[in-house]
């Protein structure tokens, strides 16, 4: 079955003429038809467009102009602007928003010839760790539909976990690729800040947001990152440096690899069973030739408080453009300008988004700036320095992606602070701008556990290599939930 194959395998099959892109696309559309609604993982399915793009890909192949990704269907998180296709960001505010242009990432993957099957559900404006803040309702975890898939890229994670598509884009501001990847048992990569263009990716927190791939394994992540990454003249924060061939470095042996284990990532708050799974994974790495070094990231315990100043501060400003004037939701019959603003925003945004806008507004307001925003920026410096120090002695930092496996739907909805703490291990990489990955490493109570890998700046080659070698030695990443096998 096509959905059991990796992108690398599908690419070879297409190249060998074993099947066409149209066949693949029909197969995945069929699966979406079967399972999409139950998982609630799509906001929009673009079947007709996908088939047209598939036929175009087949013609391109016939002309001998196909690349490695040509004809392989994929889905986008609904945070990426797609020309002519609704781009909701999981919000009522943009429920009527047909994006008038393509994001750079969308453009690049379209150019590579990948048919887009649809746009995935997500936490509203990427603010959430469970996908429950979406205007379109929560996504269900394919491993147990009574639990959350994680967030904010929960729809993308569920799509890949149920193999409704071999690849989904995600974005990660505080763990939004890695945490749902962990909870859904797939591979998710958040590249170094600046590696993937943010142009056309609706901003949550500009200095933290980074787009990346969510796939079945590291080899596939490397294949799509080859296309997603790169300098973009339309993004001032895009790094002007060459894109290495991420696939070429995958097979490097791990002999002498130095793995740093931050003791702060194994303390209180971590589910003991999850800890055990991570320890076994580390043992596996030792067998692959790696050396394990205990390290300390002393300030990382304050990454959650720091993040909950920086991200809301930026979001409070980024989301000001949603004012009911030029696009998006506008309230009925505003009686004056103030009413237009307040009701359009009050009705268009959900509770969590409003909460974060209010946190950020308060943290930046007169009299509080120094105590909150400035202090957070200083903390950010300390947290980054911890990593700089660590990477003097280690090649990669490892630990759990999340403190626990997927929790029940609704379990944390009324307690924002406990929800925020589910990103406790992922946030630091965003604050520092470092690349991070989550790969499947085992199960607790039949729910997937993710191993987190954090690499040095722009060292995605090494990160993918370290993930790939593990996946060659294990088969956690190949397990599928029974219902979607």
């Amino acid at each position, binding site marked *: 079955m096509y959905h059991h194959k990796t992108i690398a395998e599908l690419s070879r099959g297409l190249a060998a003429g074993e099947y066409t892109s149209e066949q693949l696309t029909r197969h995945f559309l069929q699966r979406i038809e079967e399972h999409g609604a139950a998982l609630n993982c799509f906001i929009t399915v673009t079947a007709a467009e996908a088939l047209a793009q598939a036929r175009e890909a087949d013609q391109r192949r016939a002309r001998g102009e196909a690349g490695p990704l040509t004809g392989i269907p994929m889905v986008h998180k609904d945070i990426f602007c797609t020309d002519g296709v609704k781009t909701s960001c999981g919000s009522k505010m943009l429920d*009527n*928003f047909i994006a*008038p242009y393509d994001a750079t990432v969308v453009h690049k993957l379209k150019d590579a010839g990948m048919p887009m099957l649809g746009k995935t559900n997500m936490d509203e404006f990427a603010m959430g760790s469970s996908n429950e803040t979406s205007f379109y309702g929560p996504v269900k975890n394919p491993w147990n539909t009574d639990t959350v898939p994680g967030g904010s890229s929960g729809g993308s994670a569920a799509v890949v976990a149920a193999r409704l598509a071999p690849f989904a884009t995600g974005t990660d501001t505080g763990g939004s690729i890695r945490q749902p990847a962990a909870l859904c048992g797939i591979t998710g990569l958040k590249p170094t*800040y*600046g590696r993937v263009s943010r142009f056309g990716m609706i901003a949550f927190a500009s*200095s*933290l947001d980074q787009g990346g791939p969510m796939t079945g394994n590291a080899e596939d992540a490397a294949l799509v990152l080859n296309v997603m990454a790169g300098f973009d003249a339309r993004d*001032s*924060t895009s*790094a*002007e440096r060459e894109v290495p061939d991420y696939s070429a470095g995958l097979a490097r042996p791990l002999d002498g690899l130095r793995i740093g284990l931050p003791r702060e990532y194994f303390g209180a708050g971590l589910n003991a069973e999850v800890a055990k799974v991570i320890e076994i994974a580390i043992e596996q790495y030792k067998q692959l030739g790696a050396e394990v070094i205990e390290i300390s990231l002393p*300030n990382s315990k304050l990454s959650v*408080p*720091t993040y*909950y*100043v920086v991200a809301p501060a930026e979001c*409070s400003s980024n989301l*000001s453009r949603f*004012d*009911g*004037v*030029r696009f*998006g939701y506008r309230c009925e019959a*505003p*009686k*004056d*300008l*103030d*009413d*237009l*603003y*307040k009701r359009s*925003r*009050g*009705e268009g*945004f959900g509770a969590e988004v409003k*909460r974060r*806008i*209010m*946190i950020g*507004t*308060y*943290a930046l*307001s007169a009299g509080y700036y120094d*105590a909150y925003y*400035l*202090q*957070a*920026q*200083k*903390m*950010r*410096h*300390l947290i*980054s320095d911890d990593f700089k120090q660590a990477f003097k002695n280690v090649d990669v930092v490892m630990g759990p992606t999340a403190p626990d496996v997927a929790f029940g739907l609704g379990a944390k909805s009324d307690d*924002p*602070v406990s929800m925020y703490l589910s990103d406790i291990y992922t946030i630091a990489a965003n*604050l*520092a*701008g470092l690349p991070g990955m989550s790969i499947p490493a085992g199960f607790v109570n039949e729910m997937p556990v993710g191993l987190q890998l954090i690499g040095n700046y722009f060292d995605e080659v090494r990160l993918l290599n370290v993930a790939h070698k593990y996946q060659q030695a294990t088969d956690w990443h190949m397990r599928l939930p029974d219902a979607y096998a």
Partner: protein
Amino acid sequence: MSLQKEDVEKIAHLARLAIDEADIPDYARNLSSIFRLIEEMDAVDTGAVTPMAHPLDMPQRLRDDAVSEENQREHFQQIAPQVENGLYLVPQVIE
């Protein structure tokens, strides 16, 4: 930090968010607990630390001064709530 009703109202106004009167106590309670979490940062003496505004340590790239955009008004205004004669309309603004 414990936020009062007036704080919530003030912030909601600054952020131009209409919130239900009935929800204010919830907001006050949630925001207060979030700010208590945030204030854990106070434990660290950051007197000598320089603030880090951005993860990228590079200068701003500069673009050549050239006109590269064409008029796409009709395209962009298709998604606008209310336009007339090419103008976006809002309730009357009094200066």
